[in-house]
């Protein structure tokens, strides 16, 4: 897994948006911050790095209001990178769920069992 955990995950999120369609900076930021707690100063450097690594190309589109928008477009290299990150993530998160759901998914059961264990230890 990516050593810088959160950054790696956000990278995957950015790639997942752009694998669907081209998008511009502010749109990417709004879409992500709708679902996860993340700010521009995390996302923009990622966009920039992925672009300089040739995972994205950019092009400008004139907009009616204000400055032209810089659109990011995934390259083939970016797509391959996306696939490998995605695979890594699926394998990792699959393993995590396996571990955290070992005791079942019902929190009540888990708490009850734990309470009983503590009681036993106290005796």
């Amino acid at each position: 897994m990516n050593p810088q955990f959160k950054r790696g995950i956000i990278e995957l999120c950015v790639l997942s948006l752009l694998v669907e369609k081209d998008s511009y900076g502010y749109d990417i930021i709004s879409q992500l911050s709708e679902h996860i707690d993340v700010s521009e100063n995390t996302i923009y450097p990622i966009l920039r790095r992925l672009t300089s690594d040739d995972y994205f190309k950019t092009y400008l589109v004139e907009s009616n209001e204000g400055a032209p928008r810089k659109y990011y477009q995934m390259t083939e290299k970016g797509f391959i990178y996306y696939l490998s990150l995605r695979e890594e993530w699926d394998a990792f998160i699959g393993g995590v769920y396996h571990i955290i759901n070992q005791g079942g998914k019902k929190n009540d059961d888990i708490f009850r069992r734990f309470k009983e264990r503590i009681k036993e230890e106290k005796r």
Partner: protein
Amino acid sequence: MMTYLEDLKNELKKRNVSQDEIDDIIRDHEEMISEALREDLTEEEIPQRFGDPRALAQELSSNTTSHDADEESDDSQDDFKLFKSFTPSEDEQKVFISMVFQDVTVRASNDSDYHVNYQGPGDIDEYSISYRHGELKIESPKFKGLLFKQNKKDSISFIIEVPKGTELVEFKHKTVSGDVDFRDVNAKNTTFSITSGDLNIKNTKVDKLVVNTVSGDVNVKELSARVVETSQVSGDMNMSKVIITELIHAGSVSGDFAFSDAHVELAEFNMVNGDVEGKEFYPKMISFKSVSGDLDIKNNERTDIKMQKTNTLSGKININ
């Protein structure tokens, strides 16, 4: 908005980010901030949404400097020490390299000599490096015992430079798990035998190229050759910007082949379940044998591709 951008600009300057990059970053932020203001944010909320300019500048500059640093350690000779230089004799020039897990870069030198550069904690004196009668030979010490017990930490990486403008008559490279980078060097007969290391070939002209790998991947870019013979077990091969004037014979068990921007006279594939994918791949003739591997070619320009000796059990063939 202006103060935020001004702050960001100053913070970037402090961190020696180049002017071009600063301009670009500021432009992007002008765009994003004006977008944000139009939508929902007030001037005061900008730093909240966009973060502290100092932190942002720090992140961006470490981005770029760490990126540069990566490139340098790959590319520059800063960390490499020169071991020996050899002035080429009048003979035909040949290079033979035999390694185990050492990474090797072979490239053109800036002058008319051979240079052997190395880096790493291993003992260079254990290596046999000689130049006689036009033959440069570099051999790693024979390791005793099992390969996987060898400590890669004691390894050495090499950059071997071939005199500028020299066409080698022969180049042979053998390694087990070391990666090989071969670029800007021309050699008549070029052979790579690699078990699990990766091979990168870039900008080279050869008469005959032979590549044998087991699980290593092969990347070829900007190659001109008469004949290419390649055999892989599970490694993949990528070829782009390639011209092969006579024949490519490619065999693979489960590795895939990808061609882009490739012009080939005759392409012969002998696959088990690996696929062949071509994009702007223009062979005049193809022979394709596979058990379950597919052949898929997508070209913009329609040209006649003659199929000969096609034989596949369950693979699909698709050419347009």
